[in-house]
């Protein structure tokens, strides 16, 4: 007999162990390759950027070279699309430029380049990268060098780190005479970046140009804004060239980091590049498909929950919390030893509480129970047959719910409106069971059963109401296997229940 248990337990333990390992692997896989998070509502910023290049051909063979974003940890290109009819497209990966060539053409050329960017704001500025080579000092004549050195000296009096100091000095209002003398009469963003870069080079700080877009609702076509990126303290940091503020501003998406010109067109003139940018916040789960695609693991993703239509996903999300609720019930009954009304009634109550919210749900439950029991007691005087009687209780429960909802609406008392979420049949059976227990075993036993059922329901509620737990059970649904084997293993638990420790206390010899 003992051996048999040991082997059943042994087998289940092995399965539990295997399921834990499997779940562990899947969690690792999903976090690592699909970018799943442990916290719910984790959203990722997805930017859809479209560049529209147009130019007039000059009659010579055409070569368009466009800078493209470079992927790194915090910055991933999920999708890349080029619409350039008749062009031969090649990619220069080292310089991250897209090169499109075509024989000579005549009419106005339109080329579209569209990318889907994932901008991981969490890891911004945290990515360490190898130190770039120390920049060569710019070649200045003596006069300019002196002026530059004076500026650097002046800058030290400004606030911020060396990079911000320089930017702040250059943008000061009113302009310092030394700055005024140094800057050309007309400055563009590009010139500004070059000047800052030169000054930083004098201080031996490596820097590079960065292009990006400030997202504006009203504007659809944008030209890129320039920023400067400087390498300090072991990582690249980005600076606004107007304010000297460190970091990427809100609603700003980086398109290009480093590199040379944005676009070069050979065999064309009057080239214009216009960008349109769309920001969409999607959950990391939706993003997973894109990521899987990038890693050539589409098959695996295709057969996962997360590739289903959203409505079905929501249903499955709701279902995937059930096993945990069931585990709670098993624990409460077989380990704690609470006797409840019906095995899964408390779980269904807990599910309703999720939909209604805790206090409104409890209040509604109390009202329905009280009225239901009262009606049931009146009805017991009529001596009805069982099935018609329970049916009558069901109808009464429906009527109570209707009135609660109507009254709640009229009084603008939203608590009452949650009544509709309670499972009618379950409520009716609770009422019927309670009133029978009341008559048979006394009020004490009936109340105890109701209270125990509620305690189990509330405990279950607190486990499954956590958005966090719900997310984890759905995102890492392999955990349900672990729960399954835990439940089965609990089926071999032959130890005392917690309530028995109290119940059998008198048997302990002093």
């Amino acid at each position, binding site marked *: *007999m003992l051996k048999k*248990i040991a082997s059943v337990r042994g087998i289940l333990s092995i399965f539990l162990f295997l399921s834990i390992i499997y779940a562990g692997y899947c969690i690792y896989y999903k976090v690592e390759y699909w970018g799943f998070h442990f916290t719910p509502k984790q959203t990722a910023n997805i930017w859809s950027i479209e560049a529209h290049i147009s130019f007039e051909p000059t009659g010579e063979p055409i070569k368009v070279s466009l800078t493209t974003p470079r992927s790194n940890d915090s910055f991933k290109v999920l999708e890349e699309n080029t619409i350039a009819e008749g062009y031969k497209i090649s990619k220069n990966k080292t310089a991250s430029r897209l090169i499109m060539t075509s024989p000579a053409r005549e009419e106005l050329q339109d080329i579209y380049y569209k990318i889907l960017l994932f901008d991981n704001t969490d890891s911004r500025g945290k990515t360490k990268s190898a130190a770039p080579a120390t920049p060569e000092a710019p070649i200045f004549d003596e006069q300019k060098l002196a002026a530059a050195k004076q500026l650097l000296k002046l800058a030290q009096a400004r606030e911020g780190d060396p990079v911000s100091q320089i930017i702040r000095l250059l943008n000061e209002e009113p302009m310092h005479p030394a700055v005024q003398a140094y800057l050309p009469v007309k400055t563009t963003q590009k010139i500004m970046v070059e000047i800052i870069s030169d000054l930083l080079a004098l201080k031996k700080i490596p820097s590079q140009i960065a292009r990006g877009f400030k997202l504006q609702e009203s504007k659809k076509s944008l030209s890129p804004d320039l920023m400067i990126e400087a390498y300090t303290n072991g990582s690249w940091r980005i600076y606004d060239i107007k304010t000297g503020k460190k970091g990427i501003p809100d609603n700003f998406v980086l398109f290009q980091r480093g590199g040379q010109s944005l676009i070069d067109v050979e065999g064309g003139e009057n080239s214009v590049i216009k960008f349109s940018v769309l920001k969409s916040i999607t959950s990391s789960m939706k993003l997973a498909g894109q990521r899987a695609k990038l890693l050539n693991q589409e098959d695996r993703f295709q057969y996962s929950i997360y590739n289903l239509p959203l409505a079905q996903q929501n249903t499955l999300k709701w279902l995937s919390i059930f096993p945990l609720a069931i585990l709670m019930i098993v624990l409460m009954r*077989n380990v704690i*030893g609470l006797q409840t009304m019906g095995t899964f009634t408390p779980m269904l109550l807990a599910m309703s509480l999720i939909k209604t919210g805790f206090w409104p749900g409890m209040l509604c439950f109390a009202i329905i129970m009280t009225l239901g029991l009262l009606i049931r007691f009146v009805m017991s005087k009529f*001596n009805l*047959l*069982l*099935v018609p009687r329970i049916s009558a209780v069901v109808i009464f429960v429906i009527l109570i719910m209707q009135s609660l909802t109507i009254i709640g609406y009229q009084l603008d008392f939203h608590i009452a409106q949650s009544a509709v979420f309670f499972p009618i049949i379950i409520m009716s059976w609770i009422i019927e069971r309670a009133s*029978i227990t009341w008559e*048979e*075993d*006394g009020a004490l*036993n009936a109340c105890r059963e109701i209270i125990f059922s509620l305690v189990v329901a509330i405990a279950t509620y607190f486990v499954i109401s956590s958005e966090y737990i719900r997310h984890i059970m759905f995102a890492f649904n392999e955990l349900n296997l672990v729960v399954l084997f835990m439940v089965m293993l609990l*089926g*071999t*638990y*032959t*130890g*005392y*229940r*917690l309530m*028995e*420790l*109290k*119940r*059998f*206390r*008198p*048997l*302990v*010899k002093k």
Partner: protein
Amino acid sequence: MFAWLKSFASPKELSKAGVLGMNRRNFDIISQYNPRCLYPLVDDKVKTKELANKIGISTPRLIGIIEYQYEAKNILDIIHGQKEFVIKPAQGSGGKGVLVIKDYQEEGHFFTTASGRQLAYNEVYQHISNILSGLYSLGGKYDTAIVEELVHFSDIFKDYSYQGVPDVRVIVYKGYPAMAMTRLPTKASGGRANLHQGAIGVGLDISNGKALHGVCRDIPITIQPDTGADLMKIEVPYWREHLLIGALAYEMTGLGYLGADIVLDARRGPMMLELNARPGLAIQIANGIGLKNCLKEIDKSYPSGLSAEERVDFVLNKRAK
């Protein structure tokens, strides 16, 4: 601050006291020795009665059965000529749905229950109808109503119980009577012999039927609260016959672990009321000792292959030593 903790025993203490827990009972004993296919033999009292009569266990005489709603009106024919009887569900448990009629006046159809309540015909009809529709049966399935003779319980229990029928529960393990108690209805239990409803449980020495220890609602007592009788003076007569019913019930059902509920009729001696394939664990509290060690001993040192009578004698002799 932690005083409430004292009302809990540690698992180790319980284990040392040999207490059998619900999980272990279900897993180690019931699922091992009570194959589910045998349950119908004890779940349906009509079947149990037939089997018992075949094997020579006396039970209250069957007056009639009602199987379908349309037969409910036949009750008057069935009870014709009876002064007193019991109506109960064939598949009820825990004494639910048992209607004891102490006095029946055929003229006008007046019924008086054991507690002295007057019932009209339609109330009795209603009760039967409730039984048939499954109100008292396990899982609410359709049931049969049994009408059987009323047990005139022996005078020896008169002072110990308040109304109702006191009974003796014998736990039989592998055919050996392992533990016994008598259950005495109280005012609080509404005349029913169920411990969780407030009846008194008095543990009985398995070798002689003498009181060991009394308990009411899990609290030790020595005096019956309604009558003031000394519970410790209980000594059940015809003890060997009681045990023999239990031992025979094993032969009859094949259940390795069962509870036999036995009543002592003043004229006909011990009679089996019903059998239970999952007897409760409260008997341990009533006896003041755990069941586990007792079962272990039966596993280890009791001989197998004995007849029911031999097993009873074995138990009586063993414990007497």
